């Protein structure tokens, strides 16, 4: 009996220890997670912002002043210390995010989540994310050891923070997922930059277009996906003189499209990723100073993608939004200039069909066989054996699709040609922009920028405004890269690059302003071939019309424009639909909704019902119209909004208007308007029954989701903000202005900024999401640009980082 009691109680003890100490399926190990001495209760605190901290590797003291927004103002005695401090402070406030993003970039999520992340990881690796990051590091080693040494300084700073952490201090997410931070390295910075490149300029539909082309033929394809729309309001003004360009476009070879059927394609970045930026000249400004604004539209996440800092060394003083993992300020200003970015809509990814020999060691090229090189991706999986994926590399790039991944062809595959694999020194652009004093410095900083292609807006205290569309662009032949190409024909390779000085740009244009909103970069007169999917056609026109509407603009006008909710696409289609729709069959309820949208003035404000009706109506209309593209057995894409609306209004009897399902009946645009309207009314009725009403804020329910698959407890829901995609205030459900900045070029500049989040990455801190309400209300914070390390009344705490003594 004694034995049994002893044994039973022992087993129970071991059992409870095991249960509380082990991560079981989704739940964290509860004993570890909840105990007050080292569990999450230790994270129930704001960050410390006073005292002295000694840091190994610093050469001199670094003063860090915090203001009421928890923005660190960093004053270092030299640049090395500055980037060390940046790394240290970023880790201090955002460690988990900093590391998680690079795990995601590298395709290492299986290490944290187990096998369910394997498909994601394989995709990222086959995309060549790690390969691209290694190319970037190799390039810097060879051509720019200085930048690499700054990146090493940043890594040292991050590691100084990690090294002094106890498990008690790990951010909540580590405790939740039961793992710990690893050392930071320069490669992680390169991976982060690859991640940004993928997110911002990784969208393309080449393989989908190939399927569409085969399905509908060339004539229809060109109608659905034209190179230029019937209207263009490009980034670089139409009247720009290109006569200085003396390198011609690559000659068109006699190339044939490869009309393969591609069943599935890899995941793409979200199409709502986009941005606005603009600047007005001194003549067009009420105060006589140029004013500049930027608002990148990205996924609304917590912790926010941006971390705002002031970074100062004896040689420069810069302020603005940083991205955890990258050095310097990404969108911001210094004493002399201000700058910001939007995505440049350029096609920087192309696809080649590869034919292998029998044992897949060689591939056909120029009527010969060329060696394949193999990169083995060794993917660690939590709780399981590693997965080894051999990715074949050609001179084009990685063969993403082959018999081992999303394809069944034994002897062929599709290789990706992506400018981001070429290596480069994008980090240097930011380091130089941070220090730039004038237009020439800005242009010189941009030359290092390869990818992602961006529209860099610029304004200076000297009075210049400018905008360069910068990236490394292939000089393509007409039509090159729109569809899958034959990888064995040398003529299909990228033949050369557009010389950087011929990248489209504008400086102090006559119209007195520059702007970009992801629209067409240039009009037909630019002498190089330009094609991209998904040109914006609404925000750009609203912005440009605004700046053409009067002579002088103030900071208030800039705020109003950021918060402008005009839904131009609805304005261009709704009156037409209302006019042409046969309303005789509408029920009383439907007539009520009809009256509601009729009364709408096309602003997507939070209390309106019009935007919700529009969303429903247009959404139903769109899927009815493009029902032809719903074939299940291949990857397809349907036309973009502008061309859809254009076709509805101008080709209302085209064969595409017909609903395929209804045999013996041929629908026209007019019929679709009514059918879609009735369906929309049905949905709206259901929403009303379930939710009480369908006002826009209720319907849209904007939220900022935690980076960990939107973990509800760490996310913010039902944020009351208007706008939508294709609207200047581009806030959809989960995307929107992730950083709003307005800088007036006084001397020194005065600036406003805000973002939907908070400076802290700790869900237990009041600074985790404290900007969100003000952001939603369209408010801004004035950014305290401190001229020196003197304490001012805006400083709420000062922390000094001191060099650790060697003993």
């Amino acid at each position, binding site marked *: 009996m004694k034995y049994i009691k*002893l044994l039973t109680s022992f087993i*129970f003890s071991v059992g*409870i220890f095991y249960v509380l100490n082990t991560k079981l399926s989704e739940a964290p190990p509860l004993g570890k997670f909840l105990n007050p*001495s080292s569990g999450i209760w*230790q994270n129930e605190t704001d960050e410390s912002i006073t005292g002295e901290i000694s840091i190994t590797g610093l050469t001199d003291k670094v003063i860090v002043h915090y203001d009421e927004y928890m923005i660190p103002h960093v004053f270092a005695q030299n640049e090395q210390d500055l980037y060390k401090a940046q790394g240290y402070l970023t880790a201090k406030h955002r460690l988990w995010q900093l590391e998680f993003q690079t795990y995601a970039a590298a395709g290492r999520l299986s290490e944290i989540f187990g096998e369910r992340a394997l498909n994601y990881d394989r995709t990222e690796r086959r995309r060549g994310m790690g390969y691209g990051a290694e190319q970037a590091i190799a390039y810097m080693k060879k051509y720019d050891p200085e930048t690499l040494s700054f990146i090493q300084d940043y890594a040292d700073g991050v590691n100084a923070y990690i090294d002094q952490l106890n498990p008690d201090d790990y951010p909540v997410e580590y405790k939740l997922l039961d793992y710990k931070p690893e050392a930071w390295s320069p490669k992680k910075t390169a991976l982060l930059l690859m991640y940004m490149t993928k997110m911002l300029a990784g969208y393309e539909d080449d393989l989908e277009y190939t399927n569409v082309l085969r399905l509908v033929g060339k004539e229809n394809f060109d109608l659905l996906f034209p190179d230029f729309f019937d209207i263009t309001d490009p980034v670089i003004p139409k009247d720009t003189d290109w006569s200085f360009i003396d390198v011609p476009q690559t000659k068109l070879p006699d190339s044939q499209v490869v009309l393969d059927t591609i069943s599935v394609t890899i995941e793409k970045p979200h199409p709502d990723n986009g941005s606005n930026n603009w600047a007005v000249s001194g003549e067009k400004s009420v105060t006589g100073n140029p004013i500049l604004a930027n608002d990148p539209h990205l996924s609304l996440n917590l912790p926010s993608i941006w971390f705002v800092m002031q970074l100062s060394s004896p040689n420069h003083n810069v302020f603005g939004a940083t991205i955890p993992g990258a050095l310097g300020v990404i969108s911001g200003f210094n004493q002399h200039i201000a700058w910001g970015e939007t995505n440049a809509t350029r096609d920087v990814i192309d696809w080649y069909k590869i034919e292998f020999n029998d044992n897949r060691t060689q591939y056909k090229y120029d009527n010969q066989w060329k060696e394949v090189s193999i990169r083995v991706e060794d993917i660690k999986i939590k709780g399981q054996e590693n997965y080894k994926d051999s990715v074949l590399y050609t001179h084009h790039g990685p063969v993403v699709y082959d018999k081992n991944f999303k394809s069944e062809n034994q002897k062929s595959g599709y290789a990706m040609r992506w400018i981001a694999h070429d290596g480069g020194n994008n980090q240097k652009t930011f380091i130089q922009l941070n220090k730039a004093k004038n237009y020439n410095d800005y242009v010189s900083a941009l030359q290092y920028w390869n990818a992602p292609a961006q529209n860099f807006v610029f304004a200076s205290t000297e009075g210049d405004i400018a905008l360069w569309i910068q990236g490394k662009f292939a000089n393509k032949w007409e039509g090159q890269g729109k569809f899958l190409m034959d990888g064995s024909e040398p003529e299909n390779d990228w033949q050369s690059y557009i010389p950087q000085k011929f990248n489209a740009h504008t400086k102090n244009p006559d119209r007195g302003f520059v702007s970009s909103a992801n629209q067409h970069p240039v009009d037909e007169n630019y002498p190089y071939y330009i094609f991209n999917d998904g040109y914006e056609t609404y925000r750009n026109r609203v912005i440009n019309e605004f700046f053409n509407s009067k002579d002088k603009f103030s900071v208030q006008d800039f705020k109003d424009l950021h918060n402008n909710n005009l839904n131009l696409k609805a304005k261009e289609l709704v009156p037409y639909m209302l006019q042409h729709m046969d309303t005789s069959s509408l029920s009383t309820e439907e007539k009520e909704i009809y009256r509601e949208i009729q009364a709408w003035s096309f602003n997507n404000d939070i209390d309106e019902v019009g935007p919700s009706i529009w969303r429903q109506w247009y959404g139903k209309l769109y899927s009815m119209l493009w029902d032809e593209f719903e074939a299940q057995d291949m990857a397809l894409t349907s036309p973009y909004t502008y061309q859809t609306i254009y076709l509805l209004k101008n080709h209302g009897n085209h064969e595409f208007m017909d609903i395929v399902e209804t045999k013996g009946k041929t629908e026209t645009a007019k019929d679709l308007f009514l059918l879609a309207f009735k369906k929309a009314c049905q949905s709206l009725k259901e929403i009303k029954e379930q939710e009480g009403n369908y006002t826009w804020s209720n319907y849209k329910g904007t939220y900022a989701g935690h980076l960990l698959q939107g973990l509800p407890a760490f996310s913010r829901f039902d944020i009351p903000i208007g706008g939508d995609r294709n609207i200047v205030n581009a806030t959809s459900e989960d995307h929107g202005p992730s950083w709003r900045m307005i800088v007036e070029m006084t001397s020194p500049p005065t600036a406003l900024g805000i973002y939907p989040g908070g400076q802290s990455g700790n869900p237990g801190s*009041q600074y985790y999401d404290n900007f969100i309400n003000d952001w939603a209300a369209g408010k801004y914070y004035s950014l305290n640009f401190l001229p020196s390390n003197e304490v001012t009344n805006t400083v709420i705490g000062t922390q000094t980082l001191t060099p650790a003594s060697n003993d």
Partner: protein
Amino acid sequence: MTKNIINFIVTILLAALLSLFLPWWSVMTAALTTSICIPLKKVAVFFVPFFSILIFWATYCFMLSSANDFTLAKKISQLLQLGGNPYILILFTGILGGLAAGVIAVFGKQIVIFSRSK
């Protein structure tokens, strides 16, 4: 009765001390030690260390969390589907610690009985 109180107090003190060096299972170590050194009888064997650690953990959690307006406790309570109520999370945490302590104290008691009977 006095033994119960002594065990109760020593368990808390020992747990607090050990938690400075050991991970969460410091409370199990503390309860095991006191159950052997200050053996109790009947239900007290389980309940004294149970309440001892429950009160220790719950008080500690409350002190940390109330100083920060329960910001994180509310979120974790939601995360663990405890309705977003921080007090329930505090109680839940205390019970977990108490259970671990109580169960291993029963084992400690069995060791004492076993070794005496030899």
